[in-house]
């Protein structure tokens, strides 16, 4: 395959970035998108140019490290697919592909296509867990869990934390990410104990970190590589409202 790539190049956070055009010949159509970038980088290194920096790790769609904005979509336009699972056969021969980093105030660019998503970690730190310590927990089967709730919880827990929801949201909102964690834990009796505190803490942290406000466009769900549902956001809204009324956190 022949390809024209327009890749966002930016030296570091402070520098100004720009698109640079690259032409690639003989890209195997079985290659994944990231392998195609590997091929590009191999050529750049040989030419003595700076290879394109991008985040990637497991390359099997589960670690959530990779994330490129490809032709106007996070992870490309195909449903339930991460960048690493996108294969070149999905593009036409001779195509021009524009590759951009995630763009959101909460995700500053580190270099080229690599952004800093540590704000997602900070969100989890604010309460995305059950506060139990190691040891001293009851037998696993002590509390039966409704299977439907457990299944819904698992669906929410499938979030890989890639940040595509924030990247695609016109508001730069992290509601899908936060609600997935809030829902996962609220749906299980183990997580319900501190559910009211959790939702308030996580929402407060989300606001502090400069994420935008949700306006229910549901673009996040449409682009989520793991198909996380926006009904999780509704559940979080419900939980938040109930918690604010019944047990508001002391400031």
């Amino acid at each position, binding site marked *: 395959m022949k390809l024209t790539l*327009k890749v*966002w190049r930016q030296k570091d956070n402070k520098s100004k*970035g720009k*698109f640079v055009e690259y032409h690639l010949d003989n890209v195997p159509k079985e290659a994944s998108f990231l392998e195609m970038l590997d091929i590009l980088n191999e050529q750049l290194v040989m030419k003595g140019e700076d290879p394109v920096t991008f985040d990637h790790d497991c390359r099997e769609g589960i670690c959530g490290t990779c994330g490129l*904005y490809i*032709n*106007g*979509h996070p992870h490309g*336009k195909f*449903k339930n697919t991460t960048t690493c699972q996108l294969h070149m056969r999905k593009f036409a021969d001779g195509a021009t592909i*524009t590759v*951009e980093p995630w*763009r*959101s*105030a*909460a*995700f500053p*660019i580190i270099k080229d296509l690599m952004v800093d998503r540590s704000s997602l970690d*900070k969100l989890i730190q604010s309460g995305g867990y059950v506060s139990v310590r190691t040891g001293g927990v009851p037998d696993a089967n002590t509390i039966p869990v409704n299977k439907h709730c457990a299944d*819904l919880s698992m669906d929410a827990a499938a979030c890989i934390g890639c940040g595509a929801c924030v990247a*695609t949201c*016109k*508001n*730069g*909102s992290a509601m899908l990410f936060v609600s997935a964690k809030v829902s996962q834990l609220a749906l299980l009796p183990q997580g319900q104990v501190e559910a009211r505190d959790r939702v308030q803490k996580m*929402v*407060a942290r*989300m*606001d*502090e*970190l*400069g*994420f*935008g*406000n*949700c*306006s*229910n*466009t*549901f*673009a996040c*769900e*449409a*682009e989520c590589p793991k198909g996380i*549902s*926006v*009904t999780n*956001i*509704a*559940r*979080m*809204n*419900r*939980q*938040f*409202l109930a918690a*604010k009324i019944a047990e508001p956190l002391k400031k």
Partner: protein
Amino acid sequence: MKNRKGLSSITKKLIMAITGGCLVFFLLFHGSMNVVSIISESGYNWICEFLGANWYAVVGTIGLAAMVVIHFVYAFILSFQNYRARGNQRYAVTERQDGVSWASKNMLVIGVIVIIGLGLHLYAFWAKMQLAELQGVAPSDGLSPVDGVGRIKMVFGNTYFSIMYLLWLAFLWFHLSHGIASVMQSIGWNNHVWKRRIEWLGKFFAIVIVAMFASVVLYYWLIFPNLNV
């Protein structure tokens, strides 16, 4: 961390939802009232007289105005924050996401258009009816402030005005087609079973509301003048 003081994001959403939801109810009420004008002119004028500048109608109007203002102000606050949250650099290429409606991404712009239309509407009707009554001065065109049907006939007899009205209603439809389902989502009344249903119900109510208003415009613009009464 950027410290953001004040109401939390979800609370602000909730304010949008509640004010928006109330306005939807108002529109339902207003629309069904308007339809009466097609069925019975005297019935409609009776309603106009019943409401008029009576205290409950005035209280309702003030409440309504407050809703509109709050909805409007928060829309701008939220949009401003959201704009900042997007960061300084925009995507060079964007493409519509599957299943994401145009309306949902352009609510502010549509809302502003609706507000402008509202100004027009207030000028054409409210200023000459409730406001005139409150001020105790008769409108200069000689119609009684409570002669609703007369005013309707006059306003929609004007083709340009009717077209503008219909255009306005179209934008209102877009706003409602996302807005109603969005209210349900924001207040947390959505789940995996009802998600699709709520989307369709939202669109359905948007159609009902807009159809009620539009039918009056169309009736008095196109049908009524050709009737031999």
